[in-house]
């Protein structure tokens, strides 16, 4: 059964009619109830889909020890507070709020339910019962950039982004830095389309970029529209974002960055069951398996594959960090000296572009 806000209300009413049923009698075998709220649809093939896959992973791994509930399409704002409260009242002892904009509501509701643990994705506000988690998507971008650097013939890459927020800027910079390590002539053209989900606009942006000589497109929006245009026009390639999108572009997807939240969810749920949960603030990546690379596409040769794998494994064993200096910005000023690696705080507030990225208007 798909659970939406309405069925939750009904379930909530039913639960209210049976207060605390069994909570003492079956204390030992009672599963941990875990709630999830998503800002979009679990069928978006991207961000929200990936979080839901994480929830399914949690159920598979911990089996009867957990019982999960999710609510999708929760708008950021007062509605979110109400949904969080309902989940807490239904007996969920661990609640994952998976969108940045849920932050204020999480803090508010967490104060009212001190015995419920909350975890907020991509946020910044912590509390005694509120932990934070995020993923280093830029590590995946570095692998994509390595492939793009080898395969691009025109030397022109593009990046279709939603909004110029640090998360997106970081991805553009990681792509540019890694591609230019292979071919210093490469330029990256960022185009912001001011929306996360307008497939027709994403597709038209891709058409405009291809018409002007771009031969590899990366995108940071919620769907595969740009990748489909890349396939239709027969350019060299593009990258899946959030999930493997090879179904939409079997020849053209060079690889994809897959959000794999499952291990993070298992670790938190296990900690609550064991009574060892503390509010953590984690930013995990390839090493922790929270970011994964999808299969390489047919155009990626063995040689390029080896180069991409070297970047991937280098980030796993810690020998390689894409944001290690020297790094110049796109005005030619040195921002990071040689040998110095940018701190997480610097990365999370990044608002400048590296050399080779054309300044967007």
């Amino acid at each position, binding site marked *: 059964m798909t659970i939406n806000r309405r069925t939750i209300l009904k379930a909530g009413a039913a639960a209210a009619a049976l207060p605390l049923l069994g909570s003492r009698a079956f204390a030992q075998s009672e599963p941990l109830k875990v709630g999830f709220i998503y800002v979009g649809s679990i*069928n978006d093939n991207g961000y929200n889909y990936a979080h839901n896959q994480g929830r399914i992973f949690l159920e598979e791994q911990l089996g009867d020890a957990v019982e999960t509930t999710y609510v999708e399409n929760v708008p950021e704002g007062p509605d979110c507070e109400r949904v969080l409260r309902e989940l807490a009242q239904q007996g969920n002892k661990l609640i994952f709020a998976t969108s940045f904009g849920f932050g204020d509501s999480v803090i508010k509701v967490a104060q009212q339910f001190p015995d419920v643990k909350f975890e907020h994705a991509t946020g910044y506000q912590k509390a005694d019962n509120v932990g934070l988690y995020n993923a280093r998507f830029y590590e995946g971008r570095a692998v994509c950039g390595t492939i793009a650097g080898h395969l691009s013939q025109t030397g022109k890459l593009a990046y279709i982004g939603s909004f110029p927020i640090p998360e997106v800027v970081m991805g553009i910079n990681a792509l540019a830095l890694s591609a230019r390590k292979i071919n210093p002539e490469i330029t990256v053209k960022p185009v912001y389309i001011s929306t996360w989900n307008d497939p*027709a606009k994403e597709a038209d942006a891709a058409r*405009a970029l291809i018409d002007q000589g771009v031969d590899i497109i990366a995108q940071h929006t919620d769907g595969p529209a740009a990748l489909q245009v890349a396939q239709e026009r027969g350019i060299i390639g593009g990258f899946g974002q959030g999930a493997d999108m090879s179904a939409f572009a079997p020849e053209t997807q060079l690889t994809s960055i897959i959000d794999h939240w499952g291990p993070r969810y298992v670790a938190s749920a296990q900690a609550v069951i064991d009574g060892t949960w503390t509010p953590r603030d984690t930013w995990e990546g390839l090493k922790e398996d929270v970011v994964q690379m999808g299969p390489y596409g047919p155009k990626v040769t063995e040689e390029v594959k080896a180069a991409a794998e070297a970047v991937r494994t280098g980030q796993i064993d810690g020998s390689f960090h894409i944001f290690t200096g020297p790094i110049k910005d796109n005005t030619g000023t040195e921002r990071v000296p040689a040998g110095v690696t940018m701190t997480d705080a610097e990365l999370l507030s990044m608002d400048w572009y590296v050399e080779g990225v054309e300044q967007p208007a």
Partner: protein
Amino acid sequence: MEIIIPIIVTLVFAATPILLAALGELVVEKSGVLNLGVEGMMLVGAIAGFAGQFYTGNPYFALLCGAMAGAATSIIFGFLTLSLSANQTATGLALTIFGTGFSALAGAPFSARPIQLMGPLFPAELASHPVLRVVFGYSAPVYFSFFMVFAVWYFLEKTRPGLILRAVGENDLSAHSIGYSVKLVRYLAVLFGGAMAGIAGACFPLLLTPQWAERMTAGRGWIAVALVVFASWRPFRLLGGAYLFGLVMTMELYAKAGGGPLSAIPSELWAALPYLATIIVLVLISIRRDASTNAPACLGKPFLPTN
């Protein structure tokens, strides 16, 4: 300069669904009914068109599915506002919310399923020709939209049923008193508007981006509604308006992608341009004294003949 041809091709595709939906809404409003549910009907048409293409691979059948689904959705609106005399504004808004939710529900099994784009109408020698594709490079709904501009104009201005429809929109009581069925005329207009919105919605998966995504029309139904006012209820002005909106939407992306002087225009200004254009056109229309705004006099009013 060779970039101009791809720009024109992209803008024609971008403008087509807006033009189709707006033509439908124009006829609806000419009959005195304001249906703000265009966006919802488009989304239902989009998922129906997607499903039609997914199961049969026949894009013409898919367009038909879109039209039927859009028309079926509009019956809900027709029943509530024409038979039950519900408030048209509120019902139209509700229809958009319904269409958004229903299409998401119906579309859930189709996520992660690509389909085939509808190919061009003309043979590849013409459709893929570097210059001639500006005329021959489109698929059938684009030519259909041109034909419909003319057909709607001809119907409204040159035919007797068109005159009756306009009479119903201008003065429903008079039309009623000389024996015309106001309800029937309005039902037919609403159905036509629904079918056109459905075809417009089906254009998204068939012409623009061959996938299903929730809310994939992303507000273009509202642009269609605005465009009818922008065009002061005239079909040929509607054609111009739809292409002006299409040009602004397309130029934003080409300018950002290509550099040059236009790329210095910030995104926010691009986003505001269609609305600035609307305001300017409305001012120009009101300066011209020869005609009023041309709005149907009974627009949005329920028809309630007393006894």
